[in-house]
């Protein structure tokens, strides 16, 4: 079964390592088929990398170098000026984004972990219905709650910018975090929790001393996932912040479509800078990152 609500445990290992590779039962196919496979894979690789090539070379071009006739070539002289300019424009927003993403990811993960535990191992009547109602929160278009949100934020006086965004990312992150943790806890043997209960541990005791310590792998997945999706969010950012008090997506959009509209080199260096943290996460912790994606890449 690989519906949205079930794939996390199995897929994590499936995409990370190949459990069945090397088994003799797998046929590798005829040579012709293999050449065809390589041709498809390599052609796709080049196509996928085209935008990356463009970002990279343009970010090192001086203004005069960026003429239409030279767009696909290397810079005539490589310059770091665009990177310096983009860094100057984006660094305050980068710091703000870290200040937003870290608490948002931690809080929503903790809530998700408690919910997941309860919904899989400490169930109450109609827990399944409640779970489905929580899941629906993952799919709703945030446009459908935006107007009352805008008014609420004014009414309760949460400062625009990072504080409101933390609140929103925590709240709307709960469904996906709950889903991932629930799927994980479903794989934890019931006996482990039962024995703690028999020993007289209450729910909180059980949660903190038995469940939490074995949740580390899931926490890694969920934290990375929340980090990435909050980092990349633009919809909430555009409603609840400005380029001057918002996260890096806002600052980048302002850089690319505002002041620097005609200077592609700076915007492209900016795009690379704004993507570095999530790319690093992806490169260093790709396995877990994929786990998060599989469990439901459904915020956006």
């Amino acid at each position: 079964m690989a519906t949205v609500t079930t794939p996390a445990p199995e897929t994590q290992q499936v995409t990370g390592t190949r459990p069945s590779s090397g088994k003799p039962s797998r046929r590798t196919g005829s040579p012709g088929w293999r050449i065809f496979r390589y041709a498809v894979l390599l052609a796709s690789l080049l196509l996928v990398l085209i935008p990356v090539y463009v970002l990279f070379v343009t970010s090192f071009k001086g203004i005069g170098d960026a003429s239409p006739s030279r767009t696909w070539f290397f810079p005539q002289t490589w310059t770091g000026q665009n990177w310096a300019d983009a860094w100057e424009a984006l660094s305050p927003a980068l710091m703000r984004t870290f200040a937003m993403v870290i608490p948002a990811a931690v809080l929503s993960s903790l809530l998700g972990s408690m919910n997941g535990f309860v919904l899989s191992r400490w169930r109450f009547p109609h827990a399944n219905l409640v779970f489905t109602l929580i899941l629906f929160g993952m799919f709703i278009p945030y446009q459908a709650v935006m107007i009352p949100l805008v008014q609420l934020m004014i009414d309760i006086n949460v400062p625009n910018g990072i504080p409101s965004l933390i609140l929103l990312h925590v709240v709307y992150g709960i469904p996906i975090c709950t889903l991932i943790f629930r799927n994980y806890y479903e794989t934890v043997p019931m006996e482990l929790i039962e024995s703690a209960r028999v020993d007289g541990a209450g729910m909180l005791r059980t949660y903190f001393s038995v469940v939490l310590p074995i949740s580390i792998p899931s926490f890694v997945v969920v934290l990375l996932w929340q980090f990435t999706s909050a980092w990349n969010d633009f919809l909430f950012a555009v409603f609840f912040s400005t380029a001057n008090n918002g996260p890096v997506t806002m600052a980048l959009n302002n850089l690319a479509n505002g002041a620097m509209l005609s200077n592609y080199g700076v915007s492209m260096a900016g795009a690379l800078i704004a993507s570095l943290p999530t790319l690093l996460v992806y490169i260093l912790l790709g396995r877990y990152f994929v786990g998060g994606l599989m469990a439901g890449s459904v915020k956006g």
Partner: protein
Amino acid sequence: MTRVRSWLPGLLLISPSLLLLGVFVYGFIGLSFRESLTDKHTAAQATGRDPVGFVGFSNYTELLASPAFQHSLRNLVIFTVVFLLGTLVIGFCWAWVLERPIKGEGIFRSVYLFPMAVSFVASGVVWKWLLNSNVGEQASGLNRLFQMTGLGFLQNEWWTNPRYGILAIALPAIWQLSGYVMALFLAGFRGIPDELREAARVDGASEMQLYRHVVFPQLSPVALSALIIIGHMSLKSFDLIMSIANQSAYSTKVPAIDMYNFATVYDYANSAAVGVILLVIVALAVVPYLWYDARARKRG
């Protein structure tokens, strides 16, 4: 009583989350709906200086009758169909080609998947440039590449075309999410037990028959999840359009952009109405799926 004591603590533990989601998801959907039934079209009404009246469903009927909004809906349909087809076909082919062991698999997989780690705003920076509509001497981006490689007939006006401009936005969307669909399908392929294939081979099935009658049918749950995930992302598309074409471009307008545009001029009633329309569209796709999923869970 003892039964209540056994589940009550669990319910208490998740009650903060339930409360938050109850308010921020279901409560606010209700508030949005109420807002959409009013005549709150001006800043004075939004700030409470002018009275607000109840107008029933007239905002909806007027929106749905207006050619501008019909254009948005039409764009949404075109975009969703192409985005879905593109990611599903490409993602499936990549997974199929990668399914059996091949050298360099890890590299291909990682590269195909990496665009997913980047925000739409950042990728929008480079795609805006790649999809530059200039032709001839001024051609840059893909138009320039076509010119240089003798594919000049492919040059076109991309997202600025009023009828099919939205198709140009589907290109980066497909670029960004095909790898994700690949990961889903790859997990699906590898979740199929080897015994099943062996059994079919023993029964004398050819490789083609094996795929047609054994492997592909097993992948339908994966295809369904991919359809739902990509489909609901597509219906909510906002970031990419904002960063490539920005909100004022008529050619690439979709409901999510309308919602934002109404909100920026304090036309909260219409803004909320568009949000509710989007919610209904998404719910039509997602609710049957969640229902099906909940039933599958019940059956275990």
